[in-house]
């Protein structure tokens, strides 16, 4: 009875450390990742190769995005998504029409390394659009991943490109009805003469 009256200071210290560790594990998933060796999204920075673009409808332009891992461990596999936002509040942007590359997969980036992605954009409507890249971790790391990493937005100003001969079809478009009209007119004249 004399030994249980007071807890040993050593035991109290060990219990406190355990409690702290459990609490940290619950509240700080990054610590768990750190324990498995993966860098959080907050350690990723994305830069783009263009600051602004002026172009015409139908004209393709490309840019690169560099995803740098400034963390101390490698990232999980990532998904990079190309996003479009109409900043003139009127242009309708369907991402599928503007780029064949909606998303790209990125292999884990080692600590201190970077990955470079190339994007192709072909504006189909005139207007002002902001283009940027967002990076997400692939599942299962996506769950509880925290804020995503995003690149700066590239303002893209698109003017309408007018062509009289899209795809080179103009000669056929004009010639077929013309030839038919001439042929039938000729036939009528020949018949009326006969």
């Amino acid at each position, binding site marked *: 009875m004399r030994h249980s009256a007071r807890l040993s200071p050593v035991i109290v210290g060990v219990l406190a450390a355990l409690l702290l560790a459990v609490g940290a594990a619950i509240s700080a998933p990054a610590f768990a990742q750190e324990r498995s060796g993966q860098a959080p999204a907050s350690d990723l920075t994305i830069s783009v190769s263009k600051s602004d673009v002026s172009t015409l*409808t*139908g004209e393709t332009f490309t840019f690169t995005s560099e995803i740098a891992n400034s963390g101390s461990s490698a990232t999980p596999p990532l998904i990079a998504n190309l996003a479009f936002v109409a900043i003139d509040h009127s242009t309708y942007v369907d991402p599928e*029409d503007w780029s064949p590359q909606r998303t790209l997969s990125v292999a884990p980036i080692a600590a201190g390394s970077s990955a470079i992605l190339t994007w192709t954009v*072909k504006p*189909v409507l005139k207007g002002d659009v902001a283009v940027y890249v967002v990076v997400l971790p692939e599942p299962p790391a996506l769950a509880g991943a925290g804020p995503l990493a995003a690149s700066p937005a590239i303002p893209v100003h698109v003017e309408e490109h007018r*062509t009289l001969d*899209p*795809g*080179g*079809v*103009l*000669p*056929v*478009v*004009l*010639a*077929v*009805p013309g030839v*038919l*009209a001439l042929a*039938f007119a000729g*036939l*009528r004249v020949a*018949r009326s003469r006969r």
Partner: protein
Amino acid sequence: MTSLSRSEPAPQSLAPATSGGWTVVAAQELRDLWLSARGPIIVLVFSLLLSLLTYLAATNKELNIIDQKDTVNLVMQITLGIGVAVSLLFSADAVSGERERETLESLLLTPVPRRQIALGKLLAAASIWPVMVVVAIPYVWALKGGASLFANAVVAGFVVGSLLTAAFGSLGLIVSIFSNSNRLSLALTFFVFVVLLAPTQLPLSGWFGDLIVKINPVTAGSSFLDNVVVKGHGWGQESALLLAPVLAAIIATSVAFLIAGRLRLQRGIDR
């Protein structure tokens, strides 16, 4: 003063046009259609429509709004719809139109069997279809889909369109035989075609949607063309979709020729 000279007796060897009568009827109907304004105007308007469509499609293709295969498919689908519809309207005029113009009796007084009269008229009405395909060819080529896409689209479109032309042309003839009014036979036949065409514009899914697509010869033919041209599927893979158009062509044509043999001056058939 008119007078009749003493005429030579009719040559005994005057072969009645019983076996080749349909060629005479077809030749005359083709002349009426293509040497008058009717056929040429229709084809010219069709080519203007295709010109507009092709220009717009090419513009959109430049912008990647639609794919190259989609543009080719679009041109062929439009050609199919218009070609079959126009053929159908001409065949619906075949008998009821003659009744209204009071020219049917003269035709029935010839020794040409009724079936051959009907066959000749049906062939002339169906001639619209291949002409429209020929007109569509330069447009399909101009969309620069490549030789294999071009050939596949044209051949598939021609096959589907021929089956549907046979089916609906025969339907038009059947309705025409039973109608005294040309307006009624044109309206009724066109209505049936539109009703069968409508599902191509609806999103059909599930087992019921699949069933509709497969049993309706128009949706089946359109889907066949779509899958072969756009999705690049093989003919064998999509052959089930040709079943409805083939059956429709066989059944409609058989019924048409069965009743054409009993064609009569007033609407209906001899019992």
